[in-house]
């Protein structure tokens, strides 16, 4: 296991004056209008706000998928915008875990093979990666479903697989897009409990985009966004 980062003292994410727009002059859409955001290591922060407010654009930039038009975004000490495209890909492979709204599991691979993908991307031998995936699946309560195909699992189980996949290479940053929107209340709570546990046990930083106010109590802080701005950052009790 990677050493837990120093708490509070260091920031996992430091964004300053981030702007991002899409399209040409006439069809130009401004997604982010000068975002300032700092996320402590080991913190679970949620980005909330109406559709089109820039939440997804912001986590895409934080995850190193998109480049900002201007501003600085330092992630785990690396200025993400200065990385070459190939270096950004490698950065994501090593340091970032992803949990998607629609799980995005590969339907042709078994559950364990899906979980093993980030290790495979990092050059770990397939059998070893699969063994570690099986162990992690046991941790998320799916030890007996390692050889099942994703489509044989319920939505909640698939999201557990996605969580295991996001954790397996012990990333320092995990970005989640609407992780509970497709789940019922009980399952959503279980998933959030699991994610919260992962943050605490592994010291990973988690940035979650969500509309689901049922999971707000799990956040350390909640950043409210609107029209490309962060309008408010507060602890969960403040929302």
């Amino acid at each position: 296991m990677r050493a837990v980062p120093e708490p509070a003292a260091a920031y996992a994410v430091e964004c300053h004056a981030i702007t991002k727009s899409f399209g040409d002059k006439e069809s130009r859409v401004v997604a982010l209008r000068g975002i300032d955001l700092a996320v402590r290591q080991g913190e679970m922060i949620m980005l909330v706000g109406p559709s089109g407010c820039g939440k997804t654009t912001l986590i895409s930039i934080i995850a190193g998928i998109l480049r900002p038009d201007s501003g600085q975004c330092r992630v785990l000490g690396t200025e993400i915008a200065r990385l070459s495209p190939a270096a950004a890909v490698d950065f994501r492979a090593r340091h970032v875990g992803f949990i998607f709204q629609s799980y995005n599991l590969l339907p042709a691979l078994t559950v364990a093979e899906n979980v093993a993908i980030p290790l495979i991307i990092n050059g770990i031998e397939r059998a070893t990666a699969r063994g570690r995936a099986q162990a992690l699946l046991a941790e998320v309560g799916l030890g007996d479903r390692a050889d099942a195909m994703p489509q044989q699992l319920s939505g909640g189980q698939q999201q557990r697989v996605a969580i295991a996949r996001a954790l397996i290479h012990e990333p320092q940053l995990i970005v989640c897009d609407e992780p509970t929107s497709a789940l019922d209340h009980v399952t959503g709570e279980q998933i959030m409990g699991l994610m919260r546990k992962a943050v605490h046990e592994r010291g990973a930083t988690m940035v979650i985009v969500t509309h689901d106010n049922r999971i707000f109590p799990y956040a350390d802080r909640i950043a409210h966004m609107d029209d490309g701005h962060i309008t408010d950052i507060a602890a969960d009790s403040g929302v």
Partner: protein
Amino acid sequence: MIIDARHAVAVARVFFYKTAMNFIALQMLFGDRGKYIAMIVGITFAALIMTQQPAIFLGLISRTYSYVGELSLPDIWVMDPTVDFVEESKPLRDTELQRVRGVPGVAWAVPLFKGLLTVLLPDGQRKIIDISGVDDATLIGAPKIMLQGSLADLRKDDGIIIDANAASERYSITDSATGKKRPLRVGDVLEINDQRSVVVGIAKLDRTFTTQPLAFTTYARAMRYAPGQRRMLTYILVKAKPGADVEQVAADIRAHTGLTAYSKDAFKIVNRQYWMKNTGIPINFGISVFLGFLVGAAVAGQTFHSFVRESLKQFAALKAMGVRNTTLVRMVMLQAAVVGLIGYGIGVGLSALFGTAVAGSVLAFYMPWQLLIFSGGGVLLIVMLAALLSIRAVIRLDPATVFRS
């Protein structure tokens, strides 16, 4: 040493990474069973058409010179300058034989009669027969493989040798004793142009393009069968002296006699070219092959493209998780290559089965290794087109799409 160890670890990681990603690519391919089968069917169809149709074409074309190939001993064929193909009978004066024998570099020269005559079969059927009259003394020009009887039997009274295919197919007769159809066989008596002839042998011969049944007899007897004409000598078959340049001897014959002389290989080409130019066969088969390519490309290309498009979400997830474009391109190429290889293998296998099934029948089929390269090239082109179309989409794929549900 430390650097070496690190290098070894790095190499091992790359190896593990590549093999595992290849595994994922193949699982993705085999996992979408419907599209996988559709792609294989498309490529198989294309490979089948692009192999089987040209094989039939080559088989047919090889029949245009099969008669020339049957006569193994002569190096050079001498004929009237206006002859376009081997079945075209334009007789020479008998004296031309002596003139050819006098050309330097000629070891020996023998006459060959070739012409279409009418034959009356034992059961009363009248048919056309392609009679070859070979040199009485040497029997040069007679068939190589005898199934019944022997070449020497040609010297028996009224003896002729019949092609086995003709004997069992077009010349099959109704047996007077049993009333049933049976092949012509040794001992059967025929009439050629009202002259008695007796079947003394059955020979195995390659089928000819014109499909006329072949029969062989001596030159003198052929003169008796054929309607009397001032000129009867159809070809002069020549052997060059040992060590002589065959093409040069042929040129010398042309120069000395004013006749046309081809080496055996050149005469084969003349025959092939004649039928290629004067029939629509190459165009017809060319169209078939092109249509096979088009349909195969359309089915396999479209299905593969659709397969990749439907996998874009998965590729986007992999891209987001840190898989580089080069790896994704390699995965798509591998998927295309596997589909191409399997489809090609099945297509060529089916073609070979077809060839085996029709071997010896009236259907022509010739599948040389060059044809496998040709159809393999066609399949490769289809696969590359399909892959290139799809790779573009994968390279341009925005990994941020994974955040859009």
